[in-house]
């Protein structure tokens, strides 16, 4: 996976995570191009878009689009289910999207496929972060709001 992108239906970026180096300029270009391509697609189409020699697998949850960019030859459905896996974990635990993502993916590879384990790992991180937790929650609230 080259990067993960969460975009709202209005084209606002909600979360980005880059596993390959992109300059700021490239990043905003990528975001612009992809939101243009993905947000305009109708609901009954497939979840894959071909883009600059890569594939972008996306899925819409409520008004939020989860996009992951992969190589042509990667397994698309696998990625699609990683997205869903992530969303389910978010659902189960309204923690910060970021460090949950870190528990699910590292280096653009799936790390943990058990929801229980992820939740179990994220929980103590939080108890350690008494103070930071509230801030974390405020971010996750945004995501929660957006996900509703």
């Amino acid at each position, binding site marked *: 996976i080259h990067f993960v992108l969460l975009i709202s239906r209005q084209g606002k970026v909600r979360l980005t995570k880059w596993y390959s180096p992109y300059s700021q300029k490239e990043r905003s270009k990528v975001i612009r191009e992809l939101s243009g391509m993905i947000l305009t697609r109708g609901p009954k189409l497939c979840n894959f878009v*071909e883009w600059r*020699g890569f594939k972008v697998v996306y899925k819409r949850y409520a008004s939020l689009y989860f996009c992951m960019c992969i*190589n042509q030859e990667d*397994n698309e459905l*696998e990625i699609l289910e990683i997205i869903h896996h992530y969303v389910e974990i978010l659902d189960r635990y309204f923690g910060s999207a970021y460090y949950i993502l870190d528990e699910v993916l590292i280096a653009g590879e799936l*790390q943990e*496929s058990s929801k229980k384990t992820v939740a179990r790992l994220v929980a*103590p991180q939080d108890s350690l972060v008494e103070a*930071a937790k509230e801030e974390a929650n*405020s971010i996750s609230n945004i995501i929660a709001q957006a996900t509703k």
Partner: protein
Amino acid sequence: MALSGMRGLSVFISEIRNCQNKEQERLRVDKELGNIRTRFKNEKGLTPYDKKKYVWKMLYIFMLGYDVDFGHMEAVSLISAPKYPEKQVGYLVTSCLLNENHDFLRLAINTVRNDIIGRNETFQCLALTLVGNIGGREFAESLAPDVQKLLISSSCRPLVRKKAALCLLRLFRKNPDVVNVDGWSDRMTQLLDERNLGVLTSSMSLFVALVSNNHEAYWSCLPKCVKVLERLARNHDVPQEYTYYGIPSPWLQVKTMRALQYFPTVEDPNTRRSLFEVLQRVLMGTDVVKNVNKNNASHAVLFEALALVMHLDAEKEMMSQCVALLGKFIAVREPNIRYLGLENMTRMLMVTDVQDIIKRHQAQIITSLKDPDISIRRRALDLLYGMCDVSNAKDIVEELLQYLGTADFTMREELALKAAILAEKFAPDLSWYVDVILQLIDKAGDFVSDDIWFRVVQFVTNNEDLQPYAALKAREYLDKPAIHETMVKVSAYLLGEYSHLLARRPGCTPKEIFGIIHEKLPTVSTPTISILLSTYAKILMHSQPPDPELQNQIWAIFSKYESCIDAEIQQRAVEYLTLSRKGAALMDILAEMPKFPERESSLIKKAEDTEADTAELSAIKLRAQQQASTALVVTDQRPANESPQVSQLAMVKIPSMNNMENNSVDQELTQANGILGEVEPQPPTHAPDADILGDLLSPLAIEGPPGVSAKSEHNIVSGIEGPLSEDDALALAPVGEQDNVVKPIGDVAERFHALCLKDSGVLYEDPYVQIGIKAEWRAHQGSFVLFLGNKTTSSLVSVQAVILPPSHLKLVLSSVPEIIPPRAQVQCPLEVENIRPSRDVAVLDFSYKFGTNMVNNKLRLPAVLNKFFQPTPVSAEEFFPQWRLLAGPPLKLQEVVRGVRPMSLGEMANLLNSLRLVVCPGLDPNASNLVATTTFYSESTRALLCLVRIETDPADRSQLRMTVASRDPTLTFELKEFIKEHLVSIPTASRPPPQPQIAASDPGALLAGLL
């Protein structure tokens, strides 16, 4: 205290959320950034807590897509905070804001290392996550051993070990040269026994990377992978929490099957059997269910299984099962499955013997061309393009044409190009080809490049039978009310040349033709006006007896344009006017265009260059790869006195043709005293001897049934293209081995490849015989010694060794004894002389009799192009003048190579060095480029310096641009192709089938078949 900080952040966030528009949001963000900046400036009085708060805000702003170009230092410094909350924020924000190339990261290396080797598990996790997400070269250098230790440590908990596995994966992927994985096969074998599925999944990801880099070292892991698959897919031996919608970890299944695809084959019959059992289960046991997620997950596994089956080249029965499944998929309602069905069917095309089964689904695929989803339409188009051949070209091309009318704009150009290529390659008859192209121009003129209509003109000019037909068609199109300018061009050109062939038809008198063409003149652009003027001149010439009224009309037009502001038009008008007043001279000067020299289609080349968003593995690319030699437009050397601006397409570009006419005009004018009419316009610019692909490419598409010739040439060329790719070498085996009971030990092809890079080793071995080779090279000469060893305790009789030399090598083999005594080795010297550059390969036809068995093998001899290289490092002072001197084709050729095997720059440099191309560091200022030089020796060229430059794209390792230069055009071309063969990996399953029946008596044919 904590609350206030939290409040600050959440107030900020809700303010942002409440912004009505992007502009407001930007203002608010700018304000906040300014605020943070000032706070950071007065560092005094900033508690770690404050720092953390602002860094959070920065992260939030960054997350919204804004550039945050300061405060990185603060984020990094939080990493070394002793308390968890600060540390966590530091790690999190650093890994988001910075990337691997960032200088500040260096500052953090020590802290990160301490966290990794420290005892605190939580800190270890944070550090591993950071490295795993943004670790660069320096991290790899200083941390890889520690991470490796964590991964195999028995005292670490799974949560640390799985992070360590992915962290190592990242470091290895980015810098394979830094991370030492020698001896990792044993550890990997152990890791694959892991019971914890989290760790196993991560380890499998790491394994995929390791094995993709070098599968040789990991053969011992192969049975373990099959075990994992059995455990998951057959035994369902998985804790409940690792099942996903009832499927045992689909991700792990997919990864395991992916890893298996990096092994060329599964040899052990037991392992193979178990594997196929599992695959069969997956293929047959996957049903379409209601739940989307379950469906996706099970089909992810299924598609990976399909890929693995294709890779392993399973029995035909299983293959047809796969095609049947795909056929089902492309008809389902679920768009994802439809998309993947089409995509995999395109991949399937590369597998032998299934094309016919795929063709049965043609109707369904054509339906997909009208799918509402562009992703699916693209796949369908690619598949149709790939499956097209002589038998179905008419149907497919006509479908494409029909679809062109309604296709959306983003696809039209590709569609038009593909239709044109298919029409050219597989036309059952030429008039159909003309029809297709004219329709194409009619329907999508904007998307029909000049190349396409130039090509029609070439065909028509070279085929007399076609001329009246084409002229008539052109005439018909002119009757249409609004036609595209390209149509005006092509019709005007065709009618100018051939309208006299239509003279007796209604509406086709010169006058009428002129009238209808002239109607279009006010609407066309300047370049087209030039073409029209030429047409008028030709019409005028063809109207016999002259029609004074027409003549006056046309003269009037010429006179009008004599003062045109465009120099080209003006010149034409002046010349045509003068010429047409000369009477008889006009006839000769404006005589019909001579035939064009046969040449390869520039369209295919264009197809190669088409935009990057065609799939990597799509048929078009694979075809382009296989056909690269033909796609490259044959370089023509032209006489020195040719006008330099005549481009490669000179023969079809109307303005330059005029140029040629002008030349003859000039000649005429200079020879003023009377040999008028003696000068024939000469076919321009083509020196026949310069055709470097010579006889290979001569049966090209222009004459004869184009489909057939295109096909045969396709085979030959693809055979030559890949002498170094593994499967091609396997294709070698059947010729000699069909009746052999004796199986070679080891992979003959791999032995050959190894010997291409070194000078001694084993060329061939079976239970009875071993053939070793030792070579020495001096400039264009070389001497081999063949060591023929009898491994058995009885004599080998009827030993024969014959060399089948390619035309560019002189090979002299000393006599080979007919009998090799038991346990003896005989040495046979073989002298080689290189006459000229070529990539063809010499073949050793070796046979002997053991007992009653006649054993025969055709072995390629590693007397390949790079053996005649002498690595020659060159300094900048020498390099650049040479580089500039060799300007442009054919001495300097450039090509964008796609589908390059992923390798780091270091590996690429090693590869070049092993080909005896010495990499000269520092010549190219761009660090991602390589410059290499060598000296090539052959009898005809003597010593020639070769210069190579490779420009890589760090963001996309699968493509690069290569420029090759030398003083000899053939050498340049051969060298370019040679390097390309080593850079490109052609998927093993995709090789065309070997050509099995070759008359054994014809060494030439044999050779062609072998190479």
